[in-house]
């Protein structure tokens, strides 16, 4: 009997297919980049030493040797969590601020690069509201986490799926909105996130398309596909809008990247709920290039979705 095969229907015309082979170090011979823009009258902050931003009160932490002291904790290994009585031994706990909280507040949010970050007020399908972070990659496009634009595994009926709308507040500083507020109902992600069971964190990235060209004013980040070795040796910078700080205030931290795999980047840069979607970026010759999208808290490190070639290509397509 003759058989025919059917192509799988695309789940949504907004989704991009992202089923490319995993990127490996050997496939990235040289960094692939698109340049940033500093927008109009940027008054750009000159970067600080060591690959971090120059922010009053911030000092790039010393690395490995001193971290043993930083993370020295009381001896509690003999104590068991009460949860074990019901559920057995747990996996390692995961948290978002590790040791000392190194984050510093950004007050000059009207200048580049701080103004290229945006505070997001997200309204989900069930009308619940959330906060997150996005960053400009072009005149009308912000990159963010996939779970910011498409909710998975919430456990709440009517919540999962594309969010209803996102209010984008670029360069927000508390109650001050120096670039106003733009609401978007136009989002992008990839099937690796939207159709996976519970959401596959390896594909957790997306974008917000604005009905205006605000990015021409704020400027945007460059994008880069780096090799494993380049990422391992880099200082990662993250700025965003965490929920544990006063509403709508922007906070920054930076630290050397811990590790990288084919789809994710791991780091000890402090974050808190609300910073999902932030850029993880490097400063190269004075220019800012994002190489991951912050998305998760982790045991001793936080993590973001690595910008590998398929991610890079989608972001470039979405910023057109």
């Amino acid at each position, binding site marked *: 009997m003759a058989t025919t095969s059917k192509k799988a229907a695309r789940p949504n015309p907004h989704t991009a297919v992202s089923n490319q082979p995993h990127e490996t170090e050997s496939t990235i011979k040289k960094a692939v980049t698109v340049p940033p823009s500093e927008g109009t009258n940027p008054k750009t902050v000159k970067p600080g030493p060591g690959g971090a931003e120059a922010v009053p009160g911030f000092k790039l932490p010393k690395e490995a040797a001193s971290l043993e002291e930083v993370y020295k904790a009381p001896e509690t290994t003999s104590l068991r*969590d*009460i*949860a074990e009585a*019901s*559920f057995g031994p*747990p*996996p*390692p*706990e*995961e*948290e*978002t*601020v590790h040791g000392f909280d190194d984050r510093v507040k950004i007050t000059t949010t009207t200048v580049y690069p701080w103004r290229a970050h945006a505070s997001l007020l*997200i309204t989900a399908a069930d009308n*619940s*509201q*959330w*906060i*997150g972070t996005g960053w400009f990659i072009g005149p009308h496009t912000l990159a963010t*986490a996939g*779970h*910011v634009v498409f909710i998975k*595994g*919430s*456990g*709440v*009926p009517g*919540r999962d799926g594309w969010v209803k709308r996102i209010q984008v507040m670029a360069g927000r500083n508390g109650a001050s909105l120096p670039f106003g507020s733009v609401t978007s109902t136009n989002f992008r992600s990839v099937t690796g996130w939207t159709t996976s069971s*519970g959401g596959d*964190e390896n594909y957790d990235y997306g974008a917000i398309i604005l009905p205006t060209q605000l990015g021409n004013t704020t400027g945007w980040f460059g994008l880069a596909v780096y090799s494993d070795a380049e990422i391992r040796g880099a200082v990662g910078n993250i700025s965003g809008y*965490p*929920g*544990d*700080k*006063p*509403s709508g205030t922007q906070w920054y931290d930076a630290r050397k990247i811990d590790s990288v795999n084919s789809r994710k980047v791991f780091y000890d840069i402090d*974050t*808190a*709920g*609300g*910073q*999902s979607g932030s850029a993880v970026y490097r400063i190269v010759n004075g220019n800012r290039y994002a190489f991951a999208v*912050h*998305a*998760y*808290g*982790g045991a001793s490190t*936080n*993590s973001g979705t690595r910008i590998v070639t398929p991610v890079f290509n989608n972001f470039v397509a979405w910023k057109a």
Partner: protein
Amino acid sequence: MANKISGVVLDAAGHPVAQARVYVVKAPGPAPDVAVLTGPDGRFALGAARSGTYEIACSTDHAGTASATVVVGAHDAVVELRLS
């Protein structure tokens, strides 16, 4: 359906607090780094993809902060966060 942590945020006098920011501080696995805002009735719900112990916290601009440790097992966890 996935499990969740649901609850209510109350001020020191026991009144529900709207627009409080509730987020995961510790989790048994990678946790999305978002924060949910409480509704007009002070209620919220966060997804809890894995069984285990979670620490959640909430922050407000004028009513204080609170945190709690909850265990998510076969069923949802319910928690009351009292600001101080």
